[in-house]
């Protein structure tokens, strides 16, 4: 369930926290995404998008963990 796709926030528009929109880049395709649930997001952040809503901001540091962990296992 719950297809969610990572995208890079290019810009943010709107003041109303409920309808704040981000222009988000998915591999070169730009789509408007509702940012109501990620008030902390800023341009250049990556977010996960589900049914038109950002549901979380991706943490670039944590994103490396799967590789680091694998390295520890392989040592």
């Amino acid at each position, binding site marked *: *369930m*719950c*297809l969610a*796709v990572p995208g890079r926030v290019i810009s943010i528009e709107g003041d109303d926290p409920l309808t704040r929109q981000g222009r988000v880049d*998915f*591999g*070169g*395709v*730009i*789509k*408007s995404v509702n940012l109501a649930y990620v008030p902390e997001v800023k341009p250049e952040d990556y977010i996960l*998008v*589900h*049914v038109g809503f950002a549901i979380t901001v991706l943490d670039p540091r944590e994103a490396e963990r799967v590789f680091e962990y694998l390295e520890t296992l392989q040592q």
Partner: protein
Amino acid sequence: MNEDSEQHCPLSSEGRELVKMAHGGGGRATARLLDSLFRPAFDNPWLERQHDGAVLDMPGAMAFTTDSFVVRPLFFPGSDIGAMAVHGTVNDIAMCGAEPQYLSAGFILEEGLPLATLRRVVDSMAAAARETGVRIVTGDLKVVERGKADGLYINTAGVGRVVANHPIEPGQVRPGDRLLLSGDIGRHGIAVMAAREKLDLQSAIESDCASIAPPVMALLNEGIAIRCLRDLTRGGLASALVEVAETAGLAARIQEADIPVREDISAVCELLGLDPLHVANEGRFMAVVAPEDVDRAIDILRRHSVSEAAVDIGLFLEGSAGLVTAQSVIGGSRVVDMLSGEQLPRIC
């Protein structure tokens, strides 16, 4: 829409069933409808061969094919219904190993269509015909009430001189034959979907709609041992490949890592839950060639801009008829099937 009659012994499962979008999806439901209804009714060896068009035993052997075009919107990034109507039929003729020569054009116009729109479409057809060297030599025009069409529909039929000196059709495919793909996939379907659905996508994705006759003629002229050709329209690479494998009575195996898909196409597929192997193209084809001719064939294809990214993506094997497997990018293996149902955005 009220006519119905059970007296003509409908197939058991067919009794009160309605035509659904899936029947036109170019995938399994389409194949079943063709198998169960049209082919038995018309009952002739050409349809049995399940090829893109009919190679007719006429003096000088000619190919004859048809397609209707019902795309929405009429104009979309990279192409339009008019150019599609020409290229689509030109490509089907080429897929028969024939040189496209003459087209017919049948228009169904919706009452209320602006004439300016019609002109744009017709101009685009004319340009596409000039560019590909075919003549639109006969035609027809109907108008239906507003709300009985979607702007306009076009049917084209085409004929062309057969160039190949051997049959080109699924039945010719042998185990070990290689599968060449003429370029990256998914552009047409995604370009149209992005233009149509209220998906609010901004992209540089353009339809790949184009004539693929030039590289095909080159393959033929240079004597490549082509077993089968198939353009990858509705239903995508997966549906065409499964259909050919089924008809050939063979299995096939492809490498997903070798199949070119642009990053933006891939991204839209992720967003909408689609498999790029199921997405429509209008300027891509697969060529099944004898293994010894693969390198020469790829060289020839790469000389033409429309197939400059041609690649070898797999091969046919002994095995269950129609069983196509793909090796995934991480080395696992999966079955590749025809598109099932309509192509809709999904959430899961």
